[in-house]
């Protein structure tokens, strides 16, 4: 390295603590898909203090959010709120918590925003490479597994990600819950975040597999609204998507304030 030469410093390759990444490694496309992990043995235990709540260096993630997705006969409905909080401060009311991986795959964001968007972008790249190599679209099962396996490598090192991978493939509508603990679940209905319990209540009350598209979208929207109404850390706008056989369609971006008065008037 040039600077090391000028300073006449000698970095011997034997000392693991002083091997700095070469130019190649930093700009190499493959290396961009992962983080540099400290070269200590059992890096997870070395990094565990970052995730212990009572530790001095604990990284506090904003898990304040409500995201939901459910399968029904006409595909998958995906709905999220748009509030980002830093403690008691509302950092933003307009966060996009649905990540468009490709025209037929969506991912939701809960937990660390950077973790979600970074890894889902890496997932998008892997899905595209799969498509090119195999001349067919990747299945939702495979895409969610790729993501789950990627983050499992960093288990215990403080990643925070709770996402739902939604899509439509050869097997029909697909919905998987993937999180940074290494959990990967197939299911027909999930809600993730601090407002999840409120969303589940509303969804369970109104859900049926044989719903029409209009009713399903209305249910998703209503579930998010109710979560934002009661959960302090959820709010802003309801971001609503519909996953169909032909791919996803963005339905609406509705202010929860407007929904509040609309539902109120309905009751009259």
């Amino acid at each position, binding site marked *: 390295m040039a600077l090391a030469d000028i300073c006449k410093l000698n970095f011997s390759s034997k000392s693991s603590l002083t091997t700095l990444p070469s130019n190649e490694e930093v700009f190499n496309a493959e290396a961009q898909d992962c983080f540099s992990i400290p070269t200590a043995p059992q890096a997870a235990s070395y990094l565990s203090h970052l995730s212990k709540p009572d530790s001095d260096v604990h990284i506090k993630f904003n898990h304040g959010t409500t995201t939901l997705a459910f399968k029904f006969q006409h595909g998958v409905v995906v709905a999220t709120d748009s509030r980002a909080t830093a403690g008691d401060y509302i950092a933003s009311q307009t966060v996009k918590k649905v990540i468009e991986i490709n025209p037929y795959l969506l991912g939701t964001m809960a937990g660390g925003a950077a973790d979600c968007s970074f890894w889902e972008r890496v997932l998008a790249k892997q899905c595209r490479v799969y498509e090119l190599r195999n001349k067919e679209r990747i299945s939702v*099962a495979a895409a969610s597994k790729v993501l789950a*396996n990627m983050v499992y490598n960093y288990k215990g090192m403080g990643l925070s990600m709770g996402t739902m991978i939604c899509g439509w493939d050869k097997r029909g509508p697909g919905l998987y819950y993937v999180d940074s603990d290494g959990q990967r679940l197939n299911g027909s209905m999930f809600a993730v975040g601090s407002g999840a319990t409120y969303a589940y209540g509303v969804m369970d009350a109104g859900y049926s597999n044989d719903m029409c598209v209009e009713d399903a979208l209305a249910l998703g929207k209503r579930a998010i609204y109710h979560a934002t109404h009661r959960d302090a850390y959820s709010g802003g706008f309801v971001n609503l998507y519909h996953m169909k056989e032909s791919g996803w369609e963005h339905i609406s971006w509705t202010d929860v304030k407007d929904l509040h008065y609309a539902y109120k008037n309905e009751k009259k």
Partner: protein
Amino acid sequence: KMSRYDRAITVFSPDGHLFQVEYAQEAVKKGATAVGVRGKDIVVLGVEKKSVAQLQEERTVRKICTIDDHVCMAFAGLTADARVIVNKARIECQSHRLTVEDPVTVEYITRYIATVKQRYTQSNGRRPFGLSALIVGFDYDGTPHLYQTDPSGTYHAWKANAIGRSAKTVREFLEENYNADTAASEVETVKLTIKALLEVVQSGSKSMEIAVMRRNHPLQILESAEVEKVVAEIEKQKEEEAEKKQKKMKKSS
């Protein structure tokens, strides 16, 4: 000079040859013949069984191997090299099932085997694999496939093909006798494979092993009695055709 460019395989010769790869292909040409035919609902593999020594247990010599429930392969060339390839392919099939939650397509596993073979033509200290493989199977959506790989790492899809000793003769026979009607009939596809092998194999059913795979069924190695029956049918047909020809010639002369 040729001799300077055929030691380390990473070196091209001045006229663009990779001699080690070509020598590997020679090794394949010396191997026992293998034939593959793709039908509509059935895929058939046939291999020439080299004669077994008196005290040798015949059952331990298997030239047709299952790679997964729905894919199998036959090879021509170095048996030990084939064992390594088959092993890698078997592991890759299970790895694919684990990461993608779907069985491999025949094309995928062929591509994998071909990639492994190519890697060995471009690293130093290693020689290429001395075998060509015929890979058959059905994809998840039911389409049958037959692929051939060779030591250089290329692969192609075929309707019917032969590798190993006298491959050219057998392939020419297949070109003349393969048609859509044959492919549509399971019986005819098996018959064609046996007929093609008989072009090379002298002593009839004892020196050949035939395996069939039907959609959603595991590989089935035909009993020698069954093969014997088909061979007998083929011989009878040949005799009948020879008689007809003689009669025609007598009439015309």
